[in-house]
């Protein structure tokens, strides 16, 4: 089988490595429009923030393709699909025949059509990151347009570099797709305290030399402008080839387009009416498709993904998942809000299952909640522990004087407080004597303080009664 993959981003690269892991022999050719080895787009905000170097976000080592017998055309854009000849045509004239073609062309940033927008930088690729980092070294001010996940990460990263930054958002609150208004407000206050100025409900009308212009002709200073207004699927190649395209390339549960030889995965694909913009679904799709293409699991099917959004911004803990916008009429809502401390927790429950959640400011429950959300597991009748992990757990290190006599003081030698008391009553007045008689403290030694406390307390009691 000759497999051709168009796209060397997170979906395409993942598919290639998953196929190779299952099958050493299938002939694989991959085209990537960027000249880089595939890298982890999820980590780009770390690059902007300066906590990761560009070479630390590589997904595959520099020699991976050669070592795994994969032909890689990097920096080469595919311009056409000849479905009759089952061949792809690249910008450099390469014609590559295929038996199976996988489109993983991803998405491209949405750039609003406003005057001067060419002065702005998108936030999508390593090259974009390079431009942002370079500009940040000399910029006295920056503006980020777009208050979604990526915009917030970019703004936080720039603020962390010491650049005064203003985040402009057209909607009334930040991350409105994932957050309700209250969470959006608390997030805004948290970011504000970290040096990100935020304006919501504003429309940018132009990007100028040293500022951006808002509706109403207000000006905001900006030596550097980053645009993070969302992405749209790259579907030109598929559309030109006559494949069925709506918002994305339409695929079925086998990730197959309406041409049985052509598949699509990742952000360019549309499954069951949904186009996903996160990596987890893309990797689930890559895994299913690798199973199907190699025959490792012919029954593999993609059934859609549950989405968990985690903001990656230093000192901002935020997780959001599922249907966070349901109302009290539609679902059981459990909510705890503590605006002063910057924390907000919300559970959305339907039929005893978690269908959505927001955790902001404090995320110690996030592991439990994401797993309950992912698996649709049943929730406990009392929801308190889900919002406040550890509440209701047994208290440890109880005061020895208040322990019941049956309490085990020495785990290693199974000695109770009652036995220590009995030992004291027959004359033992220090830890050594208690140890000799009961073996308490002779194992791990961890109960020494407790035994000392009990003996001391008993001695004290004796003094009182005498």
């Amino acid at each position, binding site marked *: 089988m000759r497999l051709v993959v168009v796209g060397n981003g997170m979906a395409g690269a993942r598919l290639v490595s998953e196929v190779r892991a299952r099958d050493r022999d299938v002939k694989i050719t991959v085209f990537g429009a960027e000249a880089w080895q595939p890298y*982890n787009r999820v980590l780009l905000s770390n690059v902007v923030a300066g906590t990761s170097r560009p070479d630390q976000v590589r997904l595959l080592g520099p020699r991976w393709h050669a070592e795994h017998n994969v032909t890689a055309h990097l920096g080469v854009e595919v311009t056409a699909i000849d479905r009759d000849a089952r061949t792809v045509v690249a910008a450099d004239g390469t014609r590559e025949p295929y038996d199976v073609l996988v489109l993983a062309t991803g998405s491209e940033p949405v750039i609003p059509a406003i005057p001067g927008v060419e002065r702005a930088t998108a936030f999508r690729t390593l090259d974009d990151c390079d431009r942002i980092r370079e500009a940040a070294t000399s910029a006295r001010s920056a503006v980020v347009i777009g208050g979604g996940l990526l915009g917030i990460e970019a703004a936080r990263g720039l603020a962390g570099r010491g650049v005064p930054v203003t985040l402009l958002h057209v909607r009334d609150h930040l991350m409105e797709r994932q957050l309700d208004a209250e969470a959006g407000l608390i997030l805004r206050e948290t970011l504000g305290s970290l040096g990100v100025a935020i304006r919501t409900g504003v429309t940018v009308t132009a990007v100028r030399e040293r500022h951006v212009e808002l509706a109403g002709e207000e000006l905001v200073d900006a030596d550097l402008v980053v645009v993070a207004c969302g992405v749209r699927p790259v579907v030109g190649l598929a559309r030109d080839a006559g494949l069925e395209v709506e918002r994305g390339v339409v695929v079925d549960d086998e990730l197959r387009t309406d041409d049985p030889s052509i598949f699509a995965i990742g952000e360019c694909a549309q499954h069951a009416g949904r186009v996903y913009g996160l990596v987890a679904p893309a990797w689930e799709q890559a895994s299913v498709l690798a199973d199907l293409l190699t025959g490792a699991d012919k029954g593999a099917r993609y059934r859609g993904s549950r989405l968990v959004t985690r903001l990656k911004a230093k000192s901002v803990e935020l997780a959001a998942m599922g249907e966070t916008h349901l109302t009290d009429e539609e679902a059981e809502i459990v909510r705890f809000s503590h605006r002063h401390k910057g924390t907000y927790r919300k559970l959305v429950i339907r039929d005893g299952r978690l269908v959505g959640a927001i955790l902001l400011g404090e995320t110690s429950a996030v592991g439990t909640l994401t*797993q309950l959300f992912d698996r649709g597991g049943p929730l406990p009748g009392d929801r308190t522990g889900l919002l406040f992990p550890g509440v209701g757990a047994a208290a440890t290190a109880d005061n020895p004087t208040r322990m019941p006599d049956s309490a085990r003081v020495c*785990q*290693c030698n199974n000695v109770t407080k009652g036995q220590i008391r009995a030992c004291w009553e027959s004359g033992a007045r220090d830890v050594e004597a208690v140890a000799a008689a009961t*073996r308490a403290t002779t194992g*791990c030694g961890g109960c020494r303080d407790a035994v000392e406390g009990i003996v001391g307390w008993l001695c004290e009691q004796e003094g009182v009664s005498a």
Partner: protein
Amino acid sequence: MPISLHAPGPVMSQVHGDTTVGSATHCPYCALQCGMYVANGEITPREDIPANAGGLCQKGWTAAELLTSPERITTPLLHGKPVTWEEALDYTAGRLRAIRAEHGPDAVAVFGGGGLTNEKAYQLGKFARVALRTSQIDYNGRFCMSSAAAAVNRAFGMDRGLPFPITDIGRADAVLLAGGNVAETMPPFVRHLTAMRSRGGRLVVIDPRLTQTARLADLHLQATPGTDLALALGLLHIAVAEGHADLGYLAARTTGFEAVRASVSAWWPERVERVTGVPVAQMREAVRILGEAGRAMILTGRGAEQHAKGTDTVTAFVNLALTLGLPGREGSGYGCVTGQGNGQGGREHGQKADQLPGYRKIDDPAARAHVAAVWGVDPADLPGPGRSAYELLDALGTPEGPRALLLFGSNPVVSAPRAGHVTERLAALDLLVVADFVLSETAAMADVVLPTTQWAEESGTMTNLEGRVLLRRQAAAPPPGARSDLRILGGLAERLGCGEKFPADPRTVFDELRRASAGGIADYSGITYERIAAETGVFWPCPATETAPEAGPHPGTPRPFLDRFATPDGRARMVPVDHRPPAEDVDEEFPLYLTSGRVLAHYQSGAQTRRIRSLNQVAPEVFVEVHPDLAERLNVAPGDRVRVRSRRGAAEAVARVNASIRPDTVFMPFHWEGVNLLTNPALDPMSRMPEFKVCAAALERCTGEDMERDA
């Protein structure tokens, strides 16, 4: 204390049962091998052994009870009837000869144990290869240390549990313990962690349960069962991203870092959080604790290792340790916390299907030639590698598999995965011979039971979790009727026509073991009983240095990796690994993870400790730990009898309801028949370790009907 150099221990007793001189010896149980004196059945801890330094747990204090237990067997049994030793050995040897004649040498199998002394482990391997000429030998250590062994052999070229003295732990600034509950499995070990913490050091514990050990920790990462590998990759990702990689060390002492670094790029913390359930903030904190410590250690236990991906999980933790620059640096490092009493020595001297004494590979021609010369046989006559433990048990009594089994120091009816099936395989044998000192569940099935001496009734060496070779001296006279394993092997060998090759005296066997191990990875040739006694233990490798007498004997090797690793180029090898889900994940029918482990009062299959009254009082029966949320949902109250089911069987247990376990997981201890009826025998492709630590299960309350039926 005077050391007798002519007898293996100061000998005692003119009258059976009345020992008159106390012996400096070691505990019969775990790999800590606590030092103790035994005199007249009284036990006192030794201060001179660093592992326990005067401490003992309840198992240690009560160990002598089994010396006089009424459940002790002292007469050989043939099909359940008492017979003389002559009858038992004649019958066994006759059947072995007949089965071998009819079906070939591989029709006879041998199964050993990680509790046997070095001398017995060595002799058992030799007996299989020389007296029986079978390739079919393996041991229960395969269920214990094999994943860590495979991983560190790959990384460091040498598998020594802790490649540093245990006292280094107390001097560290941070310890990460992945999947180990030392507060229950080897309580005096905690003294070293306490010493570390009292100096300001920090302890991080990874465990799906808030165990006694996790309660001691500064940070507890309560990961989903079966996700330790993802967690290790996430920690490594963070270590690299936050600048904790020791690039100078990596360049000087390792190979493969670039590929490992690229491979963990895919395991960013938020992704790992979703897989493991461990919050990102806790992962970052764990890395900060390790990365900022001057001296740090990463230790793994069975919780991380007993998986069908155990080798890769340990590899990921080793990669983390190497990235932080820990191994081979004094006071820092990676170590595996060995479980069984002689888990370390037992894996070095030829009980393993693929190995010869000295940790040599059985398919290496030079190793075969060396060992064959010591044994006085033709290298061509030595069999090749055989089946691994579970594969061996699984093949018993099948058309292609062995028809006879000799079993020493193990109780697979309780301890093997998918134990119900293993019991069927044992029952299908033409001949099952079990050597033990109590009638274990497996011995109760045997055609022939050979009553052995135990622990304090014989001498031998044990290699503890540090790789320190210790002398376990005889401290009591054996009851009449019991024979040592070495004498039993000698008696069988004699009947098989090679008795002269199988002496029964431990010191003679040890001296031969020294020659057989000479030049191997685990080189014991410079170690003598006298040196062990004088130095309270000697660390291997310890070659016999016969050159330059003024140089003195080799001192042993407390820290083998300080200058170089035991690989051909002296560098540690970093190998990229990837996470994968458990072999059997939860689903609608079996919605819970089942994991297993130990309780303080019992050891292994419980064959010994369940026969000690005071231990049985503490932990009298099998239980299942259930989170209150789960208990509420299933209408289970504390103390209820519940049934736990998996695709392989069902077991009943008493419910213990507490919040120390994850709500999606239940825990059962493995010291009773029960949990291993449920466990999954999916094997690690490299170590052949079964997936003891996670399978899918369902739980329900037993109804009144069940109770009546059981009654």
